[in-house]
């Protein structure tokens, strides 16, 4: 199954609707299959990203803040949505594979980001 992470640089993007970069990973029985691929989007749009998620047959979305209407839509489309995640995307994927990622998780590396 496929997992999509909405990212901003090396971190989970704080806003799903403003994301312009995503990572798609294929997972089987809790293990990563191959290298995750990164996709650059042509523009930021929550609606279009929802469309991409459905088209790519994604089963789990890991993201930051997502609006209720988009959240409900994806849940209705039988996706698992793990939102309000804060921290590095690599850690988010690792936690997810280990079964420890929940909505609102603040990852250990969340405070490591430097703006300068």
């Amino acid at each position, binding site marked *: 199954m496929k997992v999509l992470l909405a990212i901003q640089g090396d*971190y*989970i993007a*704080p*806003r799903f609707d*403003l994301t312009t970069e995503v990572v798609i990973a294929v997972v089987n029985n809790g293990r990563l299959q191959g290298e995750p691929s990164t996709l650059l989007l042509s523009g*930021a749009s929550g*609606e279009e990203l929802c469309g991409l998620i459905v088209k790519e047959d994604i089963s789990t979305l890991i993201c*930051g*803040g*997502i*609006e*209720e*209407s988009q*959240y*409900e839509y994806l*849940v*209705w*489309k*039988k*996706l*698992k*949505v793990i*939102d*309000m995640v*804060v*921290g590095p995307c690599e850690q988010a994927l690792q936690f997810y594979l280990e079964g420890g990622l929940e909505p*609102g998780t*603040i990852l250990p590396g*969340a*405070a490591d*980001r*430097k*703006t*300068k």
Partner: protein
Amino acid sequence: MDILRRIDFQRAIDTIQHGIAVLDSDLRILALNRYLEALSGFSAEAVQGIYFDYVIRSNLSQKTNGLRNVFEKDDPFVVEGDIIDHRRKKLPVRFTFSSLVDQSARQLGVMVIIEDISFLHNLDSKIHGKSVFEGLIGHSPQMQKVFDLLPVIARTEATALITGETGTGKDLVAEAIHNASPRAGQPFIKVNCGALPETLLESELFGHCRGAFTGADKDKPGMFRLANGGTIFLTEIGDLSLPLQVKLLTVLDDKAFFPLGGTKKVRVDVRVITATHRDLRELVGLKKFREDLFYRLNVLRLHLPPLREREGDIRLLIDYFLNKFNASMKRNIKGFDQASLGLLLEYAYPGNARELSNIVEYAVTVCQADRIGIDQLPAYLLTAGPRQVGRSLFNGKSGESAGSAEIVRAAVGAGLEQQEGWNEVEKRMIIEALVETRGKRAQAAKILGWGRSTLWRKLKQHGLA
């Protein structure tokens, strides 16, 4: 001057009814006030040292071309934008950034004030002819009674109880009451009392102190504390365990409580709104709900009528949802053909407005023409028949079985005893599903559209376990 140095800064900012964040020069969080903790859903302690926007989830980086540019602007710098709060609501806000400098004017950090300006946006909508209770749609006499009561309930501080079948809009009504009350702009915190086991729910509602139980490695504020100054909305209040009912009664009476594992009482100023689809009076009779709490909650009761009893509203809502989903999916579907419209107007909607919303959304998604026909409606509608026992496809908000159908057989109309309460209907549904699956609970749960833990809980409730 000495007094200024001794002031408890955190306590001072906690009293301010706007969001306040203190950031270092890297825009990482040093402190948050209580208001912003409630808005973001994170405690200040948990987000210390984290880059501000990961927690606040604003659209500022889009508006200011990078938050670093904030420092190059005027000081203070004011900009309007929006954030996504912990309820997944997009809130229009006004940000005020001001530098924090030392005695030598050397910049140490930034203070950000975040004001919720959704009231101004609502006022703007009101001026342009919409209603302040937008989101609640209905022209029927039955809904008009509800709309007439809402401002009255909004103006008072009394505990309110909202009853009605699932999907009738209890959540919308609770939020509308809050937004029309003097507490609008303060936190609105929703807790589903049926979603968590008792021990977790107690911690969720009242917080816990470090060491209260295994795994409690830090203090947690709890939803009552996060709602301070605002409103707490407790849904599925009928599912609250008896010990927690006692604790809730104490909070309603004393406006104070002990967090789990705590020795210090916490005082709160919170307006309580509750909701349930259950018959609380019946639960009192079954000794599952305290009579004193029932009378305490029943002071202001608002009952939401089921959709099938709201004359003319089905047609109104069909048009409303069609417009809504046409806009969100960028479609241009003109309407429904006669056959599909007839079916929709005759259907019983055991899942009420939420079910109708999902049906229309489904139809708009699958329709390739400019009018929706019978083939574009969910298949179960064709077998349900008018005003009969029917299966409904609608998504409960619990998310526990993400996206799967919740099957509801409504006790309305021909073929069923009119006096049957929801309790009896639910019990019969469970028994029928278990018979169908020859006792296999996992399969029965799937048929009923519930998670296994929900089925287990309901088996216990109905004495079937």
